[in-house]
């Protein structure tokens, strides 16, 4: 199983190395991968139809409860088959659509990465793994949408899609972590048994809200819908794949998957019904006003997603059944329409429905596929779409007090969608053929066969619903509804209200199609509302966010050393001061202290004076000389307190430093004060505070007992093991000999640096 999911990533990783092969005849071999996966998942279908589920577990980060747990049930297999099935057709279609494209290898790399991520997403049982695959789909779709990367609009759309879905992903992660924390497990199947506990928990509202944002952004629900039409800048195979069966359905999948776990509450149902119905009506009306075939399809896709969210929100058995069927219905006809749009665009160079007409005379098989898809979309009998539409009406009609309103909303949406389907699927193919299109000819069969297959399935499933009833619809239904009644779908229900509504929808849609002629003037009217569109608001937010980020970075990463030092020390000082303020046991045992002698006091005073001179002197020479004095006093302190080696080292090093300073002192800049008095006072206060804190800390540590284990070891073994009597020297050259050697190396490097800096002559700049 893990191999099946990862194979797409493997292929993606290989594409750069076989790019010549892909750009040649090799691309025809690539659809074998999705097809193989399709067959693989197909082989599970029979058992799953009988009610079995499959589990596969692979450890990943067991300590955090994260693993590759895969769960294959009805819902998962429906999506897996859609992903691999539509994937096979899209892979095939691309061989002709992007034939000879310069970056074909990249395209297949992104596409197979996307396919693998999608598979991982729908099969994951672990909700953290699910999130990781979720993000992978966002990332790989970013590359796919921005595939025409020399077009600034394309790049912008890709970025928009990524930022919206990525933003949603963050919320989703928060929701998942919260859910896992409360439920005590990241395994979905284990969480399922905690369902009642989670639903009654106080954080339930948070979990649902966070997961909703994730699902709504991904599935382009109002007000996050605007990235989807923008994503139409992608090559058509991408649009087909992302918007019919995969990417945008991920949010739907998530909601459907979590229905048995989180669904059923008032928050869950009301939010989904509200958001779903607003989206479906809003987008359906929009789709009527568009003239670009892809634009029409984009909005009708958003609307269809709205219907799905709405159906899941209704939460009744009938509505969930309708949702399950509609996912399949929509995938079949929408993928067909997208593929056809691609062919039309590829052959004629335009997607404007006001220009296109009569193409059936030259592109007959394409026209047949388009007609079938448009009819399935319209919900005309005996197509599969008819069954889908019937189920939707059955669900809305049975929904208590609100049945009337909800049904009207569903009818309005369906009428508009029907109109949109006719516009994209029928309008370009009927009427008279413009003279400039007469020379068109049918593209390579790899392009027109895939849509024909999909459209044909829409008809076959409609005529023989028993084909999918037991194998797919029933398992999908039982993944969403636990202990539901057995389902039964059929084409003919007899004469009832549902049939009446279906006929009403059909009639209204056709009438609308007769009356409203698409025109660019109608389209331009909608642009007037751009000002208050969510997209504009989001872009303003984006600009503000950018400006804020720049300001924030400028504030903290400003490149001035002293500001970093001030920030770090200021923070440290406040933190330590707070800790001290909270109460510190400052106890000094005066008996433990060493006695004070007069010469020590004199040395200490000298040192203090030297420090003061170093800091406040206005002359370089005085400062350097005081620095030297200070070094010598330290040297004396070392000497008093039994550290002759240190005293010697300090003495020689200090002498050398002063000599070095004096040697270059006339080449050094004048000793100036650059800062104002206020700044100096501020720095002074900070330094004094910090110095005092260090002093207090030192006192603290001095009152703690000392662990002398290490020094006792050295004291005992210096002579016995290393035959040396000066313990400090023995430590340095024997026990820690390697350290000392490295230290010498460092000194040598510094010396080389100093020497070369002194000797280096830069032409023309300096003349010494």
């Amino acid at each position, binding site marked *: 199983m893990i191999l099946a999911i990862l194979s797409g990533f493997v292929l993606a990783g290989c594409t750069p190395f076989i790019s010549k092969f892909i750009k040649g005849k090799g691309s025809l071999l690539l659809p074998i991968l999705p097809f193989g996966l399709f067959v693989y998942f197909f082989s599970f279908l029979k058992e799953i139809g009988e009610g079995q589920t499959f589990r596969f577990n692979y450890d990943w980060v067991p300590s955090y409860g994260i693993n590759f747990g895969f769960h294959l049930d009805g819902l998962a297999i429906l999506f897996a088959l859609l992903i691999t099935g539509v994937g096979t057709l899209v892979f095939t279609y691309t061989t002709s659509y992007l034939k000879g494209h310069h970056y074909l290898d990249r395209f297949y790399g992104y596409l197979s990465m996307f396919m693998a991520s999608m598979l991982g997403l729908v099969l994951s049982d672990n909700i953290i793994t699910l999130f990781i695959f979720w993000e992978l789909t966002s990332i790989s779709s970013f590359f796919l949408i921005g595939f025409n990367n020399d077009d600034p609009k394309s790049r912008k759309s890709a970025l928009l899609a990524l930022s919206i879905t990525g933003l949603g992903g963050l919320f989703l992660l928060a929701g998942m972590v919260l859910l896992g924390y409360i439920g005590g497990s990241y395994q979905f199947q284990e969480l399922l048994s905690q369902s009642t506990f989670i639903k009654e928990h106080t954080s339930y509202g948070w979990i649902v809200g966070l997961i909703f944002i994730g699902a709504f952004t991904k599935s382009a629900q109002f007000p996050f819908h605007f990235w989807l039409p923008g994503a139409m800048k992608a090559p058509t195979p991408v649009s087909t794949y992302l918007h019919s069966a995969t990417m945008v359905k991920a949010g739907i999948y998530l909601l459907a998957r979590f229905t048995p776990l989180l669904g059923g509450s008032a928050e869950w149902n009301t939010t989904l019904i509200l958001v779903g119905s607003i989206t479906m009506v809003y987008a359906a009306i929009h789709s009527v006003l568009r003239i670009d075939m892809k634009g029409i399809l984009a909005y009708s896709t958003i609307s269809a997603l709205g219907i799905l969210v709405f159906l899941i929100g209704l939460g009744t058995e009938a509505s969930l059944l309708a949702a399950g069927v509609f996912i399949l219905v929509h995938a079949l006809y929408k993928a067909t329409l997208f593929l056809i749009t691609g062919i039309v665009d590829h052959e004629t160079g335009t997607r404007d429905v006001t220009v296109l007409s009569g193409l059936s005379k030259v592109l007959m098989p394409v026209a047949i596929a388009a007609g079938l898809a448009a009819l399935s979309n319209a919900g005309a009998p005996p197509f599969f779409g008819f069954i889908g539409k019937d189920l939707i009406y059955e669900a809305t009609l049975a929904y208590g007090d609100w049945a009337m309103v909800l049904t009207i909303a569903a009818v309005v949406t369906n009428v508009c969608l029907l109109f949109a389907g006719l516009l994209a699927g029928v309008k370009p193919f009927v009427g008279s053929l413009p003279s400039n299109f007469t020379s068109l000819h049918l593209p390579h069969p790899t392009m027109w066969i895939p849509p024909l297959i999909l459209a044909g399935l829409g008809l076959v499933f409609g005529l023989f619903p028993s084909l999918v009833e037991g194998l797919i619809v029933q398992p999908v239904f039982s993944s969403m509804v636990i202990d539901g009644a057995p389902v039964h779908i059929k084409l003919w229900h007899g004469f009832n209200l549902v049939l009446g509504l279906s006929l009403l929808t059909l009639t209204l849609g056709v009438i609308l199609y007769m009356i409203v002629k698409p025109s660019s003037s109608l389209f331009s009217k909608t642009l007037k509302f751009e000002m208050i569109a969510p997209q504009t608001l989001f872009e303003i937010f984006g600009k503000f966010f950018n400006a804020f980020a720049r300001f924030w970075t400028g504030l903290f990463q400003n490149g001035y050393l002293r500001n970093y030092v001030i920030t770090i020390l200021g923070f440290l000082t406040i933190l330590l001061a707070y800790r001290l303020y909270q109460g510190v046991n400052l106890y000094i045992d005066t008996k433990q202290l060493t006695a004070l002698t007069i010469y020590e006091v004199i040395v200490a005073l000298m040192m203090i004076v030297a420090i003061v001179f170093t800091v406040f002197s206005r002359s370089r020479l005085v400062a350097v000389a005081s620095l030297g004095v200070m070094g010598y006093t330290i040297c004396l302190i070392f000497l008093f307190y039994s550290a002759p080696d240190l005293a010697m080292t300090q003495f020689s090093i200090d002498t050398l430093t002063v000599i070095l300073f004096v040697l270059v002192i006339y080449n050094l800049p004048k000793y100036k004060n650059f800062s104002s008095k206020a700044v100096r006072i501020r720095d002074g206060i900070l330094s004094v505070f910090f110095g005092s804190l260090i*002093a207090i800390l030192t006192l603290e*540590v001095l009152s703690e007992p000392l662990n002398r284990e290490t020094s006792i070891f050295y004291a005992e073994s210096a002579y016995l093991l290393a035959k040396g009597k000066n313990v400090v020297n023995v430590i340095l050259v024997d026990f820690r000999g390697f350290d000392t050697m490295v230290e010498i190396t460092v000194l040598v490097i510094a010396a080389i640096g*100093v020497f070369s800096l002194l000797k280096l002559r830069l032409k023309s700049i300096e003349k010494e």
Partner: protein
Amino acid sequence: MELILVVIIGLLYASGIYMMLRRSMVKLIIGLILLGNGANMLIFLLGRIVKGKPPIIDSTAKMLTEIYADPVPQALILTAIVISFGLQSFAIILVKRAYKITQTDDLDELNTTDEIYE
């Protein structure tokens, strides 16, 4: 004596930080030296100070037995002194070179890594 040393350590740290916060590069180096000395004194003091008992084994004995100064902090400080000398000498020469080329000692005016040609 410990108390005086504590005061001196605080003073060294304070003055070191103050000098580091100045815009002049020479002062920056002096600040580094002060800070380094402060750290050395800190380590020295925290190893506890003992008067007149250097960690040198008597010519007749085989190991240190009675009270003696802790050799470990001393070894550490010795290393630190030497390394900081390497750093200081390099920094001093670097500042000299930088001043030659940029003709300024003000850190705020050094905002490009490229040489300025006239």
